[in-house]
């Protein structure tokens, strides 16, 4: 087997095997990451986040 062939099959192995392995690693990590993000927001997401509320603040009652 030539060096070109060996390097090519190693590269194919890294792409076809390594990338899914890292994706599985990410999936195990994603839930925790999702919970941790958004901490700098108030509890309203998207376009409503950070805007002044209309009307009286319910927390004041």
């Amino acid at each position, binding site marked *: 087997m030539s060096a070109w062939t060996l390097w090519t099959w190693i*590269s194919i192995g890294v792409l076809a095997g390594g990338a899914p392995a*890292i*994706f599985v690693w990410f999936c195990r990590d994603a839930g925790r990451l999702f919970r941790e993000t958004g901490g700098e927001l108030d509890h309203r997401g998207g376009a409503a986040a950070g805007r002044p509320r209309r009307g009286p603040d319910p927390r004041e009652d």
Partner: protein
Amino acid sequence: MTALDYIIIAAYLVGMVAIGVVLSRRIGSFREFFVAAGHLTTPLLVCTLVSTYYGLDVLFGGSEVAYQEGVVAWFGYTRPYYVAILLAALLVAPRLKRHDFLSLPDVADHYYGRGTRAVVAVACFLYALPLLSIMGIGILLDVLLGVPFVWGVLVGAGISLAYTVLGGLLADAFTDTVQFALMCVTLGIACALVLRVQGGMDGLQAALPAEFFRPGGTYPPSVLLVFAASALSALVEPAFYQRIFAAINYRAVLIALLLGIALWAAYDWVTTVLGMAAAARGIEAEPRYALLTLTLDVLPAGLRGLFVAGVLATAMSTIDSYLLIAGGNLAYDLYRPLVRPDMDDRAVLRLTRSMTAAAAAASVCFALFFRTVVSAWIFMSTVLIAAALVPLLAGLFSRRPQPAAAGLASSLTGLGVALLFYVLIHVNGRYDEEWATQIWTFELGGRVFELWQEHAVLFALPASALAFLTARLLAARARARTIAAAPEAYHG
């Protein structure tokens, strides 16, 4: 393309946009939008680094060189990047993580003040324009559907612009993970299938001229030097910096970059092999179209759709990331510090989103101006290297503070020389069909000289370094004169 292929592509695109919409609802501040509030972990960093930095420019640019020249595409064009990325991981990243920076111009501002920040922001903006991936979508639509390149570029930019304003870095990084896995796996499978048809690497060696397997190819040494020099852009790469700032800690950055180097090396080699296989198969297409034409020719139905979805997604993830950076450059790095320092966070976030439209428009103009993917890439990396490399590395690695004038002189001179060089070459030169680049031939002292547009970095980088040293020397002399005139002010 069969109906199954189109269904796979449509399902994939809808899935990506859905992820973007869901996650974009969690963005409320500029820091969350731009650096995901520093929450990115190792696997997410690997996926987003690999898929963002490797857009269609690498896929089509690398295969373009391989189709014409062979393995030099890997040895000469992409291999220097691994060295630069390794240096960035080991030397630059730990220093950056000591500070609370949000962008590359933030670093320039920290060491040299607002003037250098502005010049680096302009260079960064030019570099971050995702024109290569927009060109890639133009190529893709041309090859798949016969849409003229100009219209493909406009459609690609329009779709990407709509997608970009939906999500910040977090949404971008999450979609990158799916895109990363899909792109790597489909490229690996495509290569295996193509090699089976072509008789393996031995078959390629039998079908192609021996020069195709020469690591230096047939390029003149000066062009190989330019390729190596353009790799220095990895040391001042805004997407790298943004992800370093977004990382949860330095260890995550280091592991991600080391894993990334292995994946990039594999990806580049497979791209090179596919470009060479296209040449061996006798595919008659524009060099930048070669890989796509070959894979669509060889892959079966279903896999073809998956591969195209991966290619589209790779383009979208890169466009999204770099439009985000370019928008941030205009709003956060230029407009707020120079025009409205009292601008609040929500206003910066809104302005950043709207500035992506300007970035997309500029990308379309550049995408139509450059004729090859490689020449466009060299221009963008030249501008960034010329303006940012010397002052930023000097700031990061000097023990003493450097004079602000040195940073400003270096970045202005580098940027100015790079742009002037390109103007001169395009005004005085001509387009060379053989080398697919702009060349200016002139006589000096009875000898004939050739200047390629790719040579710009060889003039601009030394000019930037020289300007830095000169300004530093002048500042030191001025300081010495001031001390000599009033020594008590300095020694108490």
